[in-house]
């Protein structure tokens, strides 16, 4: 990719920044060739990756190097886009929101600083991936489990800070963060919670600060660069039972949510319960053309045939219980009785006890894997996906309302419907997976119009997304419209106070510093293909 300079930065000034940065991190860790820029682009870009181009990447190896680079960025006015491991696939990968930003790649900072089996937490740097943490726990044979996202290639901290979700009792990853260290936009260094006191041993145990609590102000945020954080882990359970029901009909999702959400809210079910529609199972069985060889959406009659042929329900509930065997057994009886009121089929039951075999793609048991990304092969070519991800109250009424709306809009654009609802408590995360071939320009353009329509129509109904791709960060922020977008106005006041040069991640989640406010909602934002 050719060089896109940051706004108002001359080639000379840019080179001076890179040279100064090389003095801090070493020349090998300043990466600014065309190939480097390609490697930091959005590999699932819906359209031309040059809409979100990085100018270079700098990879510091320590907190002090991060601080030095942030100070240099202020001096040379070169905005930085911090990434942990840069694997935010479907949401922009490592690419920056503002063209010409320099990616601050924290992948080299990959130390596991603490791993405590007794209080079940770890302290990690941003470059620690789920695989790294899992390997370390296995090597030491510690009784700890992870909660992993569908794509576990990325960073533990990066995923939590981006509000990623997993499918275990610890599945709301941002909630597992406890005690953060962050480099502020002026290069200052801060620790939150009890860590604000030097050497306080409760830093990663007590989740609040004395006074305002800022931990999550650094999530989906451009207020600083998180350089380490505590993450709570699940104590390994003695046993676990998976109960699997195939749920036959599309509208059954209403009673399913009304049945499971109260159990989740009461604490009887502690897992984040993931309920994918049939296509979620199908994408791992082959390629789309093996099942439907036309570009148009798979018609309903063919869907019904496929469900029969492959013995699938429209949805699948795979609910997992964790704990001592007697407790799990008792819980299972309650869950089965609740489900039986609507479905008179006994679930498949899969018991696991300590020491039993666990296969390598068992997301609900915290095994990291990238295999779910295999769905990119479904469409063929350079397959890619984006998720349209609104949050709805965990009741059948809201879930059905949301499902019917996105189903209708997606059908209007002649695209296959692949949705999931994850019951996280009082809410459900709905992900509508949109899969496309990056090299099919017409298909990409259609996906972008579809994404626009989904945001607009869903907001009209009163729901919003919890996370989105770079290209829609402004349109989604626009939907948070209470009191003349008070949330954004507050975010930008804080941003301008802490970061007068607007140097950290301008435009992240639609928060624009004054220095780059003219780039807000520019042509590269939203679905203007």
């Amino acid at each position, binding site marked *: 990719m050719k060089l896109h300079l940051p706004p108002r930065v001359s080639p000379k000034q840019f080179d001076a920044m890179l040279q100064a940065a090389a003095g801090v991190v*070493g020349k*090998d*860790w300043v*990466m600014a060739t065309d*190939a*480097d820029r*390609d*490697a*930091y682009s959005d*590999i699932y870009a819906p359209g031309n990756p040059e809409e979100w181009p990085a100018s270079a*990447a700098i*990879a510091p190896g320590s907190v002090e190097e991060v601080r030095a680079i942030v100070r240099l960025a202020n001096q040379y006015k070169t905005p930085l886009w911090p990434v942990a491991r*840069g694997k935010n696939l479907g949401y922009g*990968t*490592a690419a920056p929101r503002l063209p010409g930003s320099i990616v601050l*790649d924290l*992948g*080299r900072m*990959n130390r596991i600083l603490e791993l405590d089996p007794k209080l079940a937490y770890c302290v990690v740097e941003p470059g620690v*991936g789920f*695989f790294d943490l*899992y*390997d370390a726990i*296995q*090597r030491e044979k510690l009784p700890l489990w992870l909660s992993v996202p569908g794509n*576990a*290639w990325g960073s533990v901290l990066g995923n939590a800070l981006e509000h990623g979700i997993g499918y275990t009792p610890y599945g709301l990853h941002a909630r597992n963060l406890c005690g953060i260290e962050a480099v502020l936009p002026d290069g200052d260094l801060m620790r939150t919670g009890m860590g604000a006191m030097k050497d306080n041993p409760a830093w990663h145990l007590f989740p609040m600060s004395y006074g305002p609590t800022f931990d999550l102000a650094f999530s989906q945020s451009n207020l600083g660069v998180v350089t380490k954080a505590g993450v709570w882990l699940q104590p390994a359970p003695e046993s676990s039972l998976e109960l699997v029901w195939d749920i036959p009909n599309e509208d059954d999702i209403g009673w399913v949510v009304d049945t499971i959400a109260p159990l989740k809210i009461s604490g009887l079910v502690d897992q984040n319960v993931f309920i994918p529609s049939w296509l979620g199972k199908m994408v*791992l*069985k*082959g*390629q789309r053309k*093996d099942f439907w060889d036309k570009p148009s959406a798979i018609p309903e009659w063919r869907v019904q045939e496929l469900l029969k042929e492959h013995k699938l329900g429209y949805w699948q509930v795979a609910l997992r219980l964790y704990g001592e065997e007697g407790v799990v057994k008792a819980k299972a009886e309650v869950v089965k009785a609740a489900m039986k009121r609507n479905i008179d089929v006994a679930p498949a039951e899969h018991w696991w006890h300590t020491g039993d*075999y*666990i*296969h*390598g*793609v068992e997301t609900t048991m915290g*095994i*990291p*894997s*990238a*295999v779910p*990304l*295999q769905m*990119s*092969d479904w469409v063929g070519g*350079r*397959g890619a996906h984006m998720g349209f991800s609104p949050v709805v109250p965990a009741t059948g009424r809201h879930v059905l309302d949301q499902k019917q709306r996105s189903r209708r809009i997606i059908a209007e654009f002649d695209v296959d419907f692949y949705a999931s609802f994850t019951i996280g408590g009082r809410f459900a995360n709905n992900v509508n997976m949109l899969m496309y071939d990056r090299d099919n320009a017409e298909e990409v353009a259609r996906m972008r119009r579809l994404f626009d329509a989904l945001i607009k129509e869903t907001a009209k109904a009163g729901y919003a997304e919890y996370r989105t791709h770079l290209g829609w960060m402004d349109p989604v922020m626009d939907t948070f419209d209470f009191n003349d977008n008070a949330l954004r106005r507050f975010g930008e006041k804080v941003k301008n106070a802490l970061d007068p040069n607007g140097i950290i991640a301008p435009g992240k989640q639609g928060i624009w510093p004054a220095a780059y406010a003219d780039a807000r909602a520019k042509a590269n934002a939203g679905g203007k293909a």
Partner: protein
Amino acid sequence: MKRVSLILAASVAVTATAVLAAPPGPMGPPPGPPPPYQLRPVEPAGDRTKPGGDGRTLFEVHCGYCHLNGGMGTNLLTKQRLMVGETPDKGLLANRTDLTADYVKAVVRMGKGAMPAQTRVDLTDAELDAVSKYLGKAG
């Protein structure tokens, strides 16, 4: 010593499962449960930009997310190799004899199909040299 034994254990696991794996159906992954998680070796300490690293260890550490037994890359490549009439064990890059070092370098830096281009933090040039020598059994 610890690392050596881990690597040996990993290699035994690869060979054993690759041999045991049933041939996949015409369009799907192998039947039965996926293989177990394969532990990667410990990342070598020291300067990652210095040449002379062990290609196999570096491959397993940095490419192992997808290219060990049961990984995403292995699954997709197994399908592809079967389609050209090869045996399923050739889904593992470590078992391939037709790769050249230059080809490995090109795919790592430019990406291919579902595989994204790898940054120089993912794999440094020195590490890529070692990995491409290890995988590039065809020269």
